[in-house]
C-alpha cells in the first residue's frame, strides 16, 4: 500500500476536512494588519516602568498619581508607590475621575506642595485637568501591536462564541443525520428563564446558595433535554419533517418562555452565579474551558465510537443504515436530545453572563448556529461533516463579528459583510474540496 503519493493524499484529506481553518487564519492575519494601534503596558509592570523613569530625575519631586478606578489601575498605582525612590514624595493618589484629579491638583497648590510630576495611565493622560496641568506628565511607554491580537481580545472572541459553539456541537450531529433543529434559539431562552425562575422562586433569589444555583442550572438543562427528546420523538416516531417540527417547537418554546417569565426580566440572581459565564481559570474563562472540553468529548464520540459512526450512517443513507442493523430511531432520539441539552447549557451560560433571564434571549441564534455548522464544512444533505470543522466555523463567525467592531464598522455594513463572508466561505470550501468545476459553472448559462 505504500505509495509515493501518501503524503500528498494526507494533506488533501486535511484540506478536505478542515479547509476552513485557512479562511480563519486569513481573516486573523487581515484583522491583525488593519488593527495595529498604540498599546500601553498596564498593571504592575507599567507602574514599575513609570516609577523608574521618575527615579531617573535627580532632584526630589512631588508626585501625584492619577488613574481611573479599574482593577489594573489599582495595581499600577500600588507598584509606583512601592518602587518610587525615597527622595520623591507622593502627595496624592487619585483613583477615580478627572474631577477628583482637578480637586487634588488644586489642593496640592493651596497646601504649598504643588505637583511637579503626574504619573498617569494612557487613559488618564487624556483628562483635561491632567493635560492642561503644567506638571511633567509621565505615562507608560507605548508600543505598536494589533488590537486584534491583544490577549484580552482573543479571550473575548472565545468567550463570545462559547454559546454558539456549544450548541453547534448538537446541531452538527443533527445536521449530519440530515435533519435540522430550528428550536435551539428558543431553547436558550427557555433554559435561561427556567433557571432564573427557579433561582428566584425556589432558592430565594439573590440569597441563593451554590446548591440552589446548581439545581436551577441543571433544571434548565434538563427541561431543554426533555424538550429535545420530545422533538426527537415527533420526528422519529411520526416521521414528521424535522424542519416543520422544530419550526413549530421554536414558536411553542418561545411562547412558554414568555409565559414563565411573565415577559419580564428576571434579575433576582446572586452574584456568585457569574462564576459559570464570567469566572476565570488559569486566565481563560470557565465557559471557554467548558466549550473546549465538550468539543474534545464530541470529537471522540463522533470519530472513535460506534455511536458516532452510526450517526454518520443514518445521515448518509437511512435505509442502508437500518438494513445494516443501526437503530435509526434511537439515533435520532439521541441527537435531538443532545442538541436540546446543549442548547439548555447555552441558555444557562447566557443567564450567567448577563446575570438576568429574559424570554427574548437567543432570538435568531439558531441561524447563527446553523451558519457556524455549515461554514465549518458540514453538508446540509447529511452524512458529512466534522465536529472540529464546526468549531472552526464558530470561530470564523466570532472573529468576523469581533473584527468588525474593532474596525468600527457600523451595524448595517456588518450584516452585509457577515452575509457575504458566509457565502464566500462556503463557496471557498466547495472549491477547496474540488467540487466546483468550470464546466459546471458554464453549464448553468448554457442550459
Amino acid at each position: 500500500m505504500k505509495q509515493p503519493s501518501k503524503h500528498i493524499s494526507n494533506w488533501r484529506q486535511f484540506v478536505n476536512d478542515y479547509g476552513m481553518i485557512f479562511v480563519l487564519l486569513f481573516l486573523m492575519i487581515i484583522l491583525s494588519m488593519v488593527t495595529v494601534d498604540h498599546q500601553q503596558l498596564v498593571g504592575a509592570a507599567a507602574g514599575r516602568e513609570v516609577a523608574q523613569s521618575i527615579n531617573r530625575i535627580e532632584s526630589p519631586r512631588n508626585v501625584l498619581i492619577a488613574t481611573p478606578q479599574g482593577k489594573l489601575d489599582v495595581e499600577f498605582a500600588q507598584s509606583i508607590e512601592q518602587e518610587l525612590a525615597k527622595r520623591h514624595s507622593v502627595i496624592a493618589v487619585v483613583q477615580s475621575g478627572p474631577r477628583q484629579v482637578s480637586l487634588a491638583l488644586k489642593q496640592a497648590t493651596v497646601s504649598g506642595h504643588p505637583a511637579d510630576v503626574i504619573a498617569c495611565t494612557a487613559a488618564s493622560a487624556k483628562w483635561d485637568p491632567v493635560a492642561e496641568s503644567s506638571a511633567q506628565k509621565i505615562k507608560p511607554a507605548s508600543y505598536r501591536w494589533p488590537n486584534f491580537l491583544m490577549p484580552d481580545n482573543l479571550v473575548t472572541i472565545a468567550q463570545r462564541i462559547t454559546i454558539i459553539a456549544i450548541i453547534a456541537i448538537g446541531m452538527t450531529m443533527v445536521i449530519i443525520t440530515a435533519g435540522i433543529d430550528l428550536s435551539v434559539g428558543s431553547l436558550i431562552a427557555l433554559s435561561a428563564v427556567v433557571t432564573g425562575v427557579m433561582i428566584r422562586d425556589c432558592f430565594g433569589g439573590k440569597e441563593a446558595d451554590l446548591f440552589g444555583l446548581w439545581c436551577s442550572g441543571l433544571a434548565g438543562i434538563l427541561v431543554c433535554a426533555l424538550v429535545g427528546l420530545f422533538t426527537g420523538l415527533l420526528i422519529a416516531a411520526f416521521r414528521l419533517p424535522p424542519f416543520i417540527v422544530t419550526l413549530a417547537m421554536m414558536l411553542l418554546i418561545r411562547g412558554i418562555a414568555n409565559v414563565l417569565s411573565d415577559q419580564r426580566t428576571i434579575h433576582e440572581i446572586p452574584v456568585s452565579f457569574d462564576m459559570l459565564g464570567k469566572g476565570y481559570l488559569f486566565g481563560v474563562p470557565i465557559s471557554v474551558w467548558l466549550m473546549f472540553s465538550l468539543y474534545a468529548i464530541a470529537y471522540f464520540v463522533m470519530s472513535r465510537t460506534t455511536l458516532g459512526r452510526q450517526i454518520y450512517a443514518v445521515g448518509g443513507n437511512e435505509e442502508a443504515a437500518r438494513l445494516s442493523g443501526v437503530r435509526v430511531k434511537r439515533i435520532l432520539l439521541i441527537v435531538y436530545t443532545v442538541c436540546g441539552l446543549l442548547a439548555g447549557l447555552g441558555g444557562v451560560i447566557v443567564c450567567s453572563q448577563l446575570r438576568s433571564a429574559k424570554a427574548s434571549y437567543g432570538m435568531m441564534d439558531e441561524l447563527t448556529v446553523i451558519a457556524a455548522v455549515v461554514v465549518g464544512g458540514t453538508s446540509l444533505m447529511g452524512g458529512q461533516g466534522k465536529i472540529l470543522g464546526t468549531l472552526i466555523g464558530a470561530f470564523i463567525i466570532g472573529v468576523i463579528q469581533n473584527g468588525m467592531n474593532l474596525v468600527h464598522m457600523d451595524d448595517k455594513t456588518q450584516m452585509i459583510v457577515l452575509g457575504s463572508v458566509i457565502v464566500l466561505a462556503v463557496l471557498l470550501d466547495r472549491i477547496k474540496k474540488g467540487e466546483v468545476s468550470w464546466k459546471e459553472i458554464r453549464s448553468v448559462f448554457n442550459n
Partner: protein
Amino acid sequence: MILNTCHNNYYTSKTAGLRGKNTTAAILFKTGFLEQVKRAVFYVRIRKYFFMMKFMGYGHMRQMLQFGIMMCLVFVLGCGTSDKQNASSETAKKKVGILVQTTVNPFFLDLAEAAQKELGDSFEVTTFGGDNSADKQAKQIKDLVVQKFDALLITPCNANAVGAPIRDANEAGIPVFTADTACLDPDVKIENHVATDNLAGGRLAGDAMIQALDAKGGNILVLDYEQAESCQQRVEGFKEVIDRHNQKPGNENAQIKIVAQLPSKAEESASQKQTKDALKANRDLVGIFAINDPAALGAVAAIEEEKLQDQIKVIGFDGQKIGKLAIRDGRIYADPIQFPKLMGQYSAMYIKKYFAGDKINPTHLIPPELYFQADAKADAELSEE
C-alpha cells in the same frame, strides 16, 4: 495559506495608489507591516506559490477563482475600514463609543448624531446599534472595553441585563453614561443618566386624552410595551391622570374606562393587529393611547381600515417625524414629544464636563411637551413635505 496572503499583499499594494488613503493597503503601508512581508516574500513568492499549488493539486481555473474570492474578502474588509481607523493612532483624541438600542428607530439615530455633533472634533466617536438584543449589546460593550475606549454612552436594550457588561467597563476604569433607558442594576457605577421624564409624559398623554374626548368620556384602549421600563412609566402616568379624572366630582357621566390593555411590541404591524382585534370586541371605543409613535400609527392603520377615524382619537408618544406628520394630517390627535436631540446633546455635554473635571449630576430628566395639530402646522421641520 501563508503564501496566499503574501500574494494578496502584493496585489493590494499595487492598487494602493489608485484607491486613496482609505484602503486596507494604505493602512498596511502605514503600519510598515507590508514592507517587511513584501521583502521577505519577494524571493520565494513565485516559485513556492506554484509549487504549493501543484502540491495541493490545483488546476489553473481553481487557482484563479480562489484568488478572486480572497481579493473580494480583502475588499469587503477594506471598505469598512474608514478614516476613523487612521485617526485612532492619534492618542490625544478621546475615544467615545455610543451604543444605541437599535439604529432602525430614528429616535436613537437622532440621539447619537446630536451627541456626536456636540462632542465635536476633540473626540473620536463611533456608534453601534444593538438590534434590540441585550446579548449583542453586551458583546459590543465588551469589545469596546477591550479596546480601552475612554468613555461609553449607552442606551440600554435591557435595563437589567446591561448591568453585567457595564460592570466590566467599571472594572476596566471606563466611565459609563446612559441615556433614555436607565440601568437598574444597583452594583454599577453610572456617571450620568439623561432621560425623558416618562411619568410626566404619561400624565400629559392622560391630559390630552381627556381633552380629546371633550369631557364626554367613554371606552379606551391602551397599547403598551411592558418590556421597556420607560413605557411602563408612561402607562403608569397615563392611568394616574385618568383615575383622577374619573374620581373628580361632576365627572360621573364622563367616566373614561380602559377596557383593554394590549402588548404592542412598540411597532406598527403588531399594534395594527392588536387594535383590529380590540375593535372587533369593542365597537364603541373612543380613544387609544399608544406608548410610542410606531404603535400609534399601527392603531391608526387599523382604525382607518375599519373607517372609524371620526369616532376614535389616538394619542401617541415620542414625537418622531412620522408621528408629527400624522399629527399634522389629523391622524393622531396629540403626542407628548420627547427630545432625542436634546438628550444626545445633554449626554455629550456631561461627557465633556466629566473630562474637564467639572461636577456632574447623576441624573437629568427632560420634561416632554404636548404637541398638537396646530404645533405641527407651524413646525418648520415638516414644511417641506
